[in-house]
């Protein structure tokens, strides 16, 4: 979309932009997967009311923390394999 930058003197390095885009996508993708996984693990689908009760709230916190830990373990295992 270079027409956006008609008046600018600075040139955009497409590699910098691609790197930032990649990183952004990675964070969003991970977030979306946490949202889906922890909903399945922590929220019963009867919907007896619209509140998050204590048990659900605690489950969400732990679920997010555990997802990050799994992320870390998998990352370390992949890094080791690729050595």
């Amino acid at each position, binding site marked *: 979309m270079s027409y*956006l930058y008609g008046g600018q003197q600075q040139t*955009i390095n497409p590699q910098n932009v691609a790197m930032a*885009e990649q*990183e*952004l996508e990675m*964070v969003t993708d991970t977030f979306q997967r946490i949202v889906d996984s922890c909903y399945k693990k922590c*929220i019963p689908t009867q*919907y007896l009311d*619209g509140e998050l009760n204590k048990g659900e709230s605690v489950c969400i916190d732990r679920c997010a923390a555990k997802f990050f830990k799994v992320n870390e373990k998998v990352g370390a295992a992949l890094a080791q394999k690729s050595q």
Partner: protein
Amino acid sequence: MDFSTFNDAERAHIQRLIEQKQMRDFMKFYTGLVERCFNDCVNDFTSKALTTKEETCVLRCTEKFIKYNERISLRFGELNQELMQQQAATAAQQQPGANP
């Protein structure tokens, strides 16, 4: 990610990408919420009207999912920040001379 080496044009471009992504993310949040509450709450196809029970369920599901989303977004932000600090600390340690 460290944007300090980026020039203004790049930062402005990336800012615009982030805004577009946020709009798209909100849209996905909305359509995903509708799908989830529809799937969990609507199971009676003897008529095309929503039953009172289904409507109540959809409203609770919406309310709950909004609260769920707020809470998990908060936790995600915190955990992400922690992770970035850890990574920064590890990177600093690996710099020559940083570890006596």
